[in-house]
């Protein structure tokens, strides 16, 4: 029957092929078509759903940061962080405040303070400021006579505009909130540490209590209820300043407008949002 069919097919198409060859060719065409249809169906099954999700996301917020929904964008605050190294005294109060606020395990830091010492002979030394301050710590004393310039540099997450940590995350765990906070969904995080390695500022670590990546959130939970981040609240000398940079009347905007500020590793193009006062180019 099939042979007959093939034969008639052959005649209809008016091809000059013989029965044997024709059958092989037909089978090849069939396989080709069926694989195309299968792939097509799979792709179609996949597409409408993702396209739906994507378009929802774009109108609601995904593309909003790039100018999607103007009404929302108008009202959406833009936050910034200013660190004044000319004021920092290295007391470590911010470190304790952060640890307490965010349950940071011992040995990890969401924020830390470095001490940069520029010696007169041109060398630079970088120390980590102890959490309890220098009193009682066994930090070796530095002879003030040999020091040209020295200052404390508090470090924390820069909440980059174009965050590398975000880009490498293989699961939807690392994301940027509509307010511009770079955050981690600990439920989704698989703890692969890609982001830990990707961050050029070294602010991420694996929290062994939760098994997920962890880092400074600029105290997202506090900011969302109009409180200052814990480290800002704790600083006795006002070396840390947090606020809305889109509001020209805010303290941070006024300070940034008045004094020159820098960001860390600007050449990497990550768009860091923590601005520093009074650091030299050795600080990275």
């Amino acid at each position, binding site marked *: 029957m099939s042979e007959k069919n093939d034969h008639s097919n052959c005649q209809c198409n008016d091809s000059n092929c013989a029965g044997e060859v024709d059958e092989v060719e037909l089978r090849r065409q069939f396989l080709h078509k069926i694989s195309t249809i299968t792939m097509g169906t799979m792709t179609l099954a996949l597409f409408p759903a993702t396209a739906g999700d994507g378009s929802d996301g774009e109108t609601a917020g995904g593309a909003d940061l790039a100018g999607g929904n103007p009404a929302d964008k108008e009202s959406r605050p833009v936050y910034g962080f200013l660190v004044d190294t000319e004021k920092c005294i290295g007391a*470590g*109060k911010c470190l304790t405040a952060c640890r307490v606020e965010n349950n940071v395990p011992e040995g990890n830091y969401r924020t830390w303070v470095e001490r940069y010492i520029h010696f007169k002979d041109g060398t630079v030394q970088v120390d980590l400021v102890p959490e309890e301050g220098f009193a009682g710590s066994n930090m070796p004393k530095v002879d003030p006579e040999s020091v040209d310039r020295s200052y404390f540099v508090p470090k924390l997450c820069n909440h980059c505009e174009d965050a590398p940590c975000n880009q490498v995350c293989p699961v939807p765990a690392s994301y*940027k909130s509509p307010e511009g906070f770079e955050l981690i969904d600990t439920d989704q995080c698989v703890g692969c540490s890609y982001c830990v390695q990707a961050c050029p500022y070294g602010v991420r670590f694996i929290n062994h209590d939760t098994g997920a990546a962890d880092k400074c959130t600029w105290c997202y939970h506090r900011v969302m209820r109009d409180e200052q981040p814990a480290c800002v609240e704790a600083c006795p000398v006002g070396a840390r300043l947090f606020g809305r940079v889109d509001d020209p009347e805010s303290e941070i905007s006024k300070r940034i407008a008045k004094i020159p500020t820098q960001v860390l590793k600007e050449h990497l193009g990550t768009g860091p949002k923590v601005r520093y006062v009074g650091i030299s180019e050795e600080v990275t």
Partner: protein
Amino acid sequence: MNWIRAFVRDTRHLWTLLFLVVASGAGFLFVRSKMIPESFGQYGPYRATAMTDLAALPSRFQADATCLECHEDVGEERAEAVHITVRCVHCHGLGEEHIVQARKAAESSDVSIDPASDWDGDFMTKIDLYITKDRATCLACHESVVGMPEDFQKIDVAEHLEEMGAGEPEDPETCFECHGGHDTAP
């Protein structure tokens, strides 16, 4: 009807294939719908409720305002003090339990909170509150180290005691013996 039987027989392998394709496609969509969190994609390629979870975290680090709700007198005492920028929690700890107790006591007269004069070591630990009077409290900020701003008050204890004419290096034992408490002055 013969041709129908023949058609079914000859195309049975195609029907099997069609069934497999449909079944695996449906299975894929089912598993996908189960695995993708509900709020995924609301703002972007992540779970939108993750932000709600995060925003629901408690503010543990208490600002002075919380303490001053009850301790107004301390607020007045400190209003003009140089150390107004030093937070209550820096010297007294978080006192989370203390705040809980105090809030309860404020609501109901049945609950009372022990007066400060009754505090002992155990009690302080229990309510997560303490009074720190050792030198380290002051020296956490004022210890003279390289790196501090020029105009910040730096203290070298040995030097300072000698200047002040103290007899022994351990006497007075704490800074507070000379420098007062809440209105600590230079």
